[in-house]
Each structure stands twice: as structure tokens, then as C-alpha cells.
């Protein structure tokens, strides 16, 4: 119930509906000229159906109630039927409206539109044909039952049916058209207004004349009616029909109408009148529907034409605006279309290619650069004869005579039978691009020349170590990599000197793995098979995210430099050795002199003594004196030795607490160059938790240098890895230093520390003796052991709690 209340139409709409319904009843009453029948043209039926069609099915109940109220009011005012009969007749009317609206909506959908003849015919058949059966049946039965108006069922039925059908025909289309087009305030032109006026005059005139018996035939009214329907469709037809009905009613009432006089039987006249109106209404509606359909058809056609024209205009614009040249050729290759841009570029239209004595295509080819024209012609002819697509770059002359590079392409359009109908061509101006490419190539060539001219070799490798580039100079110098040389590893193995390869490869592998720049000096074999020293530097190129995308390797020939350095070093070594030998010779000569003086005296005295004793008689006195001198001078010699020892013995003042690691590092630095020269790899390992030691830094450093150099020299004649280890660690209360070589080992471990003992060709045999003396003066010990699998270990200790000597 609440739902029904919620669906209530606006009161004003209900009020208008009730008023219109009562007005329709009044019209029917007026036209009910047959006394007592009360049945005539029933306009409320059309109003009712149209109202229901315009509203949602959910509020139909409200309209049914409103209609009931209106009809009962009308009954009270004019019809004066018994109340039950009035209610029953209204029930018939309501049933008719609901049935008609429901059927029409089912057939035509919602909202109902009457745009075509088919829709109109369905509307008439259901609304004006079938729906009135309800009213007719219920109304006729009621009249018969209540014995009203002196009618029985069968006489009343047609009157009811035709009255309602006419009402539906006249009112329903008009109401629908008025309400549906309410918003469409289509203004009528002056010409239309004039046409309406003339039509109204003719219509009224004919109606008045024909119905007033001045014209003999009532149906003369039909042409103006159809005119109205043709020209103004439903509105025209409906208004004309209402006017006709009103005029008919007036004449019928006055009894002066033709219909009034056709027959004496009121019933017959009634039926004739209703038939006249029904047929007129039916005709007018059908014509209006046809007219509307025709007009809509025309409208659609015009809209389609307009759309087509717009589309064509757009396409033309597109073809002209597209920043390329578009052209079409006949299957023979004759140009038949250039787009606007092409026309502007060439400075000629297709029509301008018509020249006596030459084909259109020849005229077009004249615009192609003379150098490119033969190729253009050949290529295009080939495409035309084979149907293969045409594609080419060529220079085309602009209207101002400047040639510009074009990239052109043409494809055939084939008909359904596969034959070529036309060729479509597209041509871009790529002049700027071509010049940019040329500039780029020029630049690349310049860079290439620069790279080739630089006195360096350049290689590049992918992150996978795959070789990606070798500069010309490299290929000239080292030779093009063999097919099996695909990556850095193979290349290194191929060209690096076998002695240098392990170190070089280890450095490179570490560099590749860590992504750090790395530098290698090694001997590389050139294309002549000669090894030359080079310095190679490799650096990674990274992308924005830090990923390595390429390794660049630059190598420089440093062979001359290395040779010069080696010569210099050899000279320095020789000089140093000579100087060392000289100073040692000097020193030993001085020592010898110092010792020889007293020794000479001792020996001479000894001989003298011997002579005094063996003389005859022995001169004991002189012998004693001589012996005294011998003792004195021998002591003197011993003093000399003591003094020499004192020379080597440093005073404790030069000692200080020092970290052994620092001393090792200094010794390593001093020996680094020599290690490189001798191709010895030093492996230094100093424990980190060592305390400072009280020592003479210079002496300990000398010991380290001496032992390191001995180790290197021991490996001079060794092939293979030259590895010299220096390990420093703590052993109980001392720090132990171990120097391991991989030389030939020690033959005389017992004698090697004795002064003047040497296994070296040019050695003085003092080194290890002095070393031992220095270490012992620090309270430590120096000794040798065998290294496994080969070589020697020289070890010395330095006590952590040093006793000051």
C-alpha cells in the first residue's frame, strides 16, 4: 500500500487527466445525437490508453481510480445511468485501456514510438482494433442487462466498439505525439505557418461546405485531411481530426449535416458518422505514419550523406596534412594523384605531368636526382612488372631546385581477382636524417682514425671477458686474433710470455672479479713472434645502474723503456757491487794492515828469539827480551781485533722500541724494485698482535734486507714460481721472523754463518756472519732450516723482554 502511495503521480497531472476525461465525456454526450443511447465517439478511450502508455505500469492503478472518478462525475452530470451500470461500463473502459496499453507496450516496447508505418499499424490494430472489444463487450452486456436505452447486446456492441475505436484513433496518437515531443520546440517557418493557415482555411471551408450540403460528397474532406497528415504528420492529422470531429459534431447536433440526412434511422446515421470519422482517422494516421517514416528516412539519408561528406573531408585533410608524400599510380605506372604536400614539394600537380612526347612517369622521374634516376626507373619498372613492393632511397628535386633525400615505398592494391588496380606510394623526407647519419659516419671515421693514429693498442671485452673489439693498430702489431681466441683468457694465454702469464693472469682475474681498474706489465708476443714489454691498463665502463657493460683495455709498448731501465739497473747494480767491493776491500786492507803490523813484529821477534836461543852460546838475555816483545805485540794484535769488533758493535743508544711490522714494511719497500727485476713474488705476512721491540732499526733492517736478498739470489737459477715468503709471528717470549725461499737449499748449514764462508762466486762471506752477530747482540738467535719441498728457511728471533747488554 505504501508502495502504491509512493508511486502516486503528481496531483496536477491527475487533475488534468480528470478534467480532460470529463471534457471527453461531454464531447461524447454532445455527439450522442441518437436520443437515449448515450453512446457515441468516446474520446476518453484514446486519452486513457495514451496516459497509461506514457506512465509506468506501477502507477496505472492511480489513473484507473482517477478515470473512475471522472466517469462517475460525467454520469452524474449527463448520462444518468444507474450507478451499478455506470461502474460496470467504466470497468469496461478501464479494462480496455489497460489491455490496450499492455498489448501495445508488449508489441512496441517502452517508450512507444510511432515512427514507421508498421508501428502505426500495430498501434491501430491493438489500440483501436482489439482493445475496444473489452468496452464493447462489457458495455453492451451492461446495456442489455439493465435494459437501458432500448438496446440489446448485439445492437449496442458495434456502437460501443466503433465509438471507442474512433476515440483511440483520434486522441491517442495526438496525445502521444504532443507529450513525447513536448521538449522538441521545433519552430515552424513563416512558410509553414502560411501553409497551416491556408490548409486550415481550405479544411474549414470544405468541411463547412460539404457537411452543410453545399458540396454533395462528405468525403471531399479527406484530401485536406491527408494533406495535413502528409505535411504535419501526427500533429497535423490529429488536430485536423479533432477539428473534423468538432465540426461533424456541430453539424450533426444541428441536424443540418449530410450524415444527418443520409438516413432516417438514427442508429444508421450514428454508425455512418462513426465510420466516417473512423475511416478518416485511420487514413490520416496511416498517411501520417508513412509521411513520418519517409521524413525520418530522408533525415537519416541526409545525416548519412553529411557524415559521409565530413568523413571524406577529414580523409582529404588527413591525406594532405600527413607529413609525407602520398601518391597513386595506375597499374602502368602513370601518376594519377599527388597529395597536397607532394604538390607543394614538387611544385607541380599531376596534371602538370601531362606533356606531349613523354609519359607522366618520365616527367616525374625528371625530378629525381640524375644519379639516382636510372636506379629509380629500373626498380619501379621491376615492381610494376612483377607486383613486388617498391622501396628505395633517392634524392628528389624540390620546387626551388634543391635535392632532398627521400625514402619511398609503394605497394600494389589488388582487386578481388588479384589483378593490380592501383599502386599506392608513400615518400618521407629523410634529408635531415641522411645528413645526420653522414655526419655520424664522418665522426665515427674521425674517431676511428684517431684511435688508429694513437700509439696505443685498444681492446674491449664484454663482462663475460669475450673480446668485442681490437683496434687496427693492435691487429697490425699483434696480429688478428685466431678463431679459437674468443675471450681474454685464451688471448692472455696466447700472447703473454709464459713466465709473466701467471702473475699477469692473476692480476687480471682479480680485476675482472672485483670490477676495479687493473694494470699489468708483461712481455707480449707480437706478430713477428718477438716478446716485447707492454703496460696494459683495463678499466670497466658502467651503465647508470653501476653494472659493468664493457671492459676497455689499453696497452702501451714500454719495451724500450724497460730495456733502458734494466740497463740502468744493471749499471747501478754493478756500480753498487763495485763500490761495495771497493769499500770492503778498503776495510779489509785496513784491518789487515792493523793486524799485520804487530804480527810482523811478532814473527820477526820469534825468528830473532829462535836465533838467540840457538846461537852458540845462546843469548838468553836477548831471547828473553825478544819474548817480552813477542807477548807485547801479540797482545797488540789481539787489541786490534777487539777494536775491529768494537767497530761493528753498535752502542745501545741507537736502539728504540719499534714495531717490527714497520721495519718489515721498510725492508719490503727497499727490496720491491729488486724483487720485480728478479721476478720474485714476495709474500709478506706480519701478525697483527705483535708488541714493540727494543732494537736498532738500521741493523735489523740490514739483516732483513740481507736475508731477503740471499733468498732472491738463491732462486736466480730456479725456473718456475719464484716465491719469497716473509712471515713474522710471536713464539712464546720472542718474535720469530722466517724467510722462506725456493732455491736449491743449503749444503753446509753448519758453516754458513762463519765469516768468510761463501758459496757465491763473488761473495765475501761476511753477510750471514754479520747478521748473526747483529741478531745475537739483540739477544736473539739466527739459524737455518730446510724448506719443503725445496729451498731454505732463515729464521731469527728477537726477544720481547730484551736484556740490555
Amino acid at each position, binding site marked *: 500500500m505504501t508502495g502504491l502511495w509512493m508511486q502516486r503521480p503528481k496531483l496536477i497531472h491527475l487533475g488534468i487527466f480528470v478534467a480532460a476525461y470529463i471534457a471527453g465525456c461531454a464531447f461524447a454526450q454532445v455527439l450522442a445525437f441518437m436520443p437515449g443511447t448515450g453512446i457515441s465517439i468516446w474520446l476518453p478511450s484514446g486519452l486513457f490508453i495514451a496516459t497509461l502508455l506514457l506512465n509506468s505500469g506501477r502507477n496505472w492503478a492511480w489513473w484507473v481510480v482517477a478515470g473512475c472518478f471522472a466517469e462517475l462525475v460525467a454520469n452524474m452530470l449527463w448520462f444518468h445511468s444507474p450507478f451499478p451500470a455506470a461502474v460496470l461500463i467504466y470497468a469496461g473502459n478501464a479494462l480496455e485501456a489497460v489491455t490496450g496499453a499492455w498489448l501495445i507496450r508488449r508489441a512496441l516496447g517502452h517508450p512507444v514510438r510511432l515512427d514507421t508505418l508498421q508501428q502505426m499499424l500495430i498501434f491501430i490494430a491493438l489500440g483501436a482494433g482489439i482493445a475496444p472489444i473489452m468496452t464493447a463487450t462489457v458495455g453492451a452486456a451492461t446495456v442489455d442487462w439493465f435494459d437501458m436505452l432500448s438496446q440489446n447486446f448485439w445492437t449496442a456492441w458495434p456502437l460501443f466498439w466503433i465509438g471507442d475505436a474512433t476515440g483511440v484513433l483520434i486522441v491517442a496518437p495526438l496525445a502521444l505525439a504532443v507529450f513525447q515531443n513536448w521538449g522538441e520546440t521545433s519552430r515552424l517557418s513563416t512558410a509553414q505557418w502560411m501553409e497551416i493557415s491556408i490548409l486550415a482555411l481550405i479544411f474549414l471551408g470544405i468541411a463547412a461546405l460539404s457537411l452543410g450540403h453545399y458540396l454533395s460528397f462528405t468525403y471531399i474532406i479527406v484530401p485536406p485531411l491527408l494533406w495535413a497528415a502528409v505535411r504535419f504528420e501526427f500533429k497535423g492529422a490529429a488536430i485536423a481530426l479533432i477539428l473534423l470531429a468538432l465540426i461533424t459534431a456541430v453539424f450533426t447536433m444541428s441536424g443540418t449535416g449530410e450524415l444527418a440526412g443520409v438516413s432516417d434511422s438514427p442508429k444508421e446515421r450514428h454508425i455512418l458518422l462513426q465510420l466516417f470519422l473512423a475511416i478518416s482517422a485511420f487514413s490520416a494516421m496511416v498517411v501520417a505514419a508513412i509521411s513520418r517514416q519517409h521524413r525520418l528516412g530522408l533525415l537519416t539519408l541526409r545525416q548519412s550523406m553529411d557524415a559521409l561528406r565530413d568523413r571524406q573531408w577529414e580523409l582529404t585533410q588527413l591525406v594532405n596534412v600527413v607529413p609525407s608524400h602520398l601518391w597513386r599510380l595506375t597499374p602502368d605506372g602513370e601518376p594519377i594523384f599527388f597529395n597536397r604536400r607532394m604538390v607543394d614539394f614538387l611544385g607541380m600537380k599531376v596534371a602538370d605531368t601531362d606533356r606531349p612526347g613523354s609519359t607522366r612517369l618520365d616527367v616525374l622521374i625528371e625530378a629525381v636526382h640524375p644519379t639516382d634516376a636510372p636506379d629509380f626507373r629500373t626498380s619501379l619498372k621491376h615492381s610494376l612488372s612483377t607486383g613486388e613492393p617498391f622501396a628505395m632511397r633517392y634524392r628528389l628535386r624540390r620546387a626551388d631546385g634543391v635535392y632532398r633525400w627521400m625514402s619511398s615505398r609503394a605497394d600494389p592494391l589488388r582487386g578481388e581477382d588479384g589483378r593490380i588496380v592501383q599502386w599506392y606510394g608513400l615518400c618521407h623526407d629523410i634529408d635531415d636524417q641522411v645528413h645526420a647519419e653522414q655526419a655520424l659516419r664522418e665522426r665515427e671515421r674521425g674517431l676511428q682514425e684517431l684511435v688508429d693514429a694513437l700509439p696505443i693498442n685498444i681492446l674491449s671485452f664484454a663482462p663475460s671477458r669475450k673480446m668485442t673489439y681490437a683496434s687496427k693498430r693492435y691487429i697490425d702489431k699483434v696480429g688478428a686474433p685466431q678463431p679459437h681466441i674468443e675471450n681474454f683468457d685464451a688471448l692472455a694465454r696466447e700472447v703473454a710470455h709464459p713466465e709473466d702469464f701467471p702473475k699477469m693472469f692473476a692480476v687480471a682475474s682479480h680485476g675482472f672479479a672485483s670490477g676495479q681498474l687493473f694494470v699489468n706489465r708483461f712481455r707480449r708476443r707480437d706478430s713477428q713472434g718477438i716478446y716485447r714489454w707492454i703496460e696494459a691498463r683495463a678499466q670497466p665502463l658502467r651503465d647508470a645502474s653501476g653494472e659493468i657493460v664493457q671492459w676497455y683495455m689499453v696497452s702501451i709498448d714500454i719495451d724500450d723503456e724497460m730495456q733502458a731501465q734494466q740497463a740502468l739497473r744493471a749499471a747501478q747494480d754493478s756500480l753498487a757491487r763495485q763500490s761495495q767491493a771497493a769499500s770492503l*776491500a778498503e776495510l779489509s*786492507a785496513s784491518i*789487515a*794492515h792493523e793486524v*799485520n*803490523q*804487530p*804480527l*810482523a*813484529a*811478532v*814473527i*820477526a*821477534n*820469534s*825468528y*830473532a*828469539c829462535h*836465533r*838467540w836461543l840457538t*846461537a852458540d852460546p845462546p*843469548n838468553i838475555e*836477548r831471547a828473553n*827480551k*825478544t819474548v817480552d*816483545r813477542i807477548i*807485547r*805485540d801479540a797482545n*797488540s794484535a789481539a787489541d786490534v781485533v777487539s777494536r775491529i769488533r768494537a767497530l761493528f758493535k753498535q752502542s745501545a743508544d741507537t736502539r728504540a722500541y719499534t714495531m717490527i711490522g714497520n721495519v718489515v714494511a721498510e725492508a719490503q719497500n727497499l727490496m720491491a724494485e729488486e724483487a720485480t727485476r728478479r721476478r720474485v713474488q714476495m709474500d709478506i705476512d706480519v701478525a697483527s698482535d705483535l708488541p714493540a721491540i727494543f732494537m736498532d732499526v738500521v741493523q735489523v733492517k740490514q739483516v732483513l734486507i740481507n736475508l731477503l736478498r740471499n733468498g732472491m739470489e738463491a732462486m736466480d737459477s730456479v725456473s718456475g714460481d719464484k716465491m719469497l715468503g716473509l712471515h713474522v709471528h710471536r713464539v712464546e717470549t720472542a718474535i720469530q721472523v722466517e724467510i722462506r725461499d725456493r732455491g736449491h737449499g743449503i749444503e753446509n748449514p753448519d758453516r754458513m754463518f762463519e765469516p768468510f764462508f761463501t758459496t757465491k762466486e763473488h761473495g765475501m762471506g761476511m753477510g750471514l756472519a754479520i747478521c748473526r752477530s747483529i741478531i745475537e747482540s739483540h739477544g736473539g738467535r739466527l739459524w737455518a732450516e730446510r724448506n719443503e719441498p725445496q729451498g731454505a728457511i732463515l729464521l731469527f728471533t728477537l726477544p720481547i723482554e730484551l736484556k740490555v747488554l
Partner: protein
Amino acid sequence: MSQVKRIVAVVDDDPRVLESLEELLESAGYATRSFGSAGALLNGGISNIDLLITDIGMPTIDGFELRDRVKRERPDLPVFLITGRHEIADQGRAQGVGGIFQKPFDGQALLAAVGDALQHKGKGG
């Protein structure tokens, strides 16, 4: 013992060597004159000596120079050079010259050489 003792002059800046040579030569029956420097010998005169033994390495006038000066005055005087520096004995200046003894020298050999020299001199003169 009526034979007049031959006089051997010895020059050395080291008194120990000087003493020991004096002792050795006297034990062999020579008379000796000892000088601490070349200058002292030259000042005293060389006319009455029969043989000269001189150290090489000495300040001011060394043994070579002393020998040269003595030879200019007395070319026939036998001169023996002694040295504690072996490299001097190897020097070019000393090459080809007889009578160089390296300290410590063999006493017998020195006495034999002195004896030879004086005997030759005696025979010759």
C-alpha cells in the same frame, strides 16, 4: 869475528816493527841503524850503510820515494821494501821490483835475501 859488521839501516814508522827487525838482524850478526822516518835516515846520511830495509806506508816520504832518493845517491845500495798492505805489493809501481816483503814476513827468507844482497855487493865491490 874480525870481520867488520855490515850495517843495515831500517826505516819504519811502527816502533814495534823497527825493534823486531833490529833484533832479527842483530841476531844474524848485522849492525843496525833504526830510523822512525825516511827524513831521519836522509838527515843522518846514507854513505856508511850497506843495505836499507824500509816500510812503504809512511807519512811525508813513503818507502818508494825513499828508495828512489837513495838509489840516486847510491845506485848500488840494496833496498828492501816491506809493507803491511798487500794491495800495495800488487800495485804496478811495485811490479818488477825485487825485494818487497809483505808483513808478516818470513824471517828466514828476509835474512837469506839480505845475506844474498850483501854477498853480491861484496863480490861486486
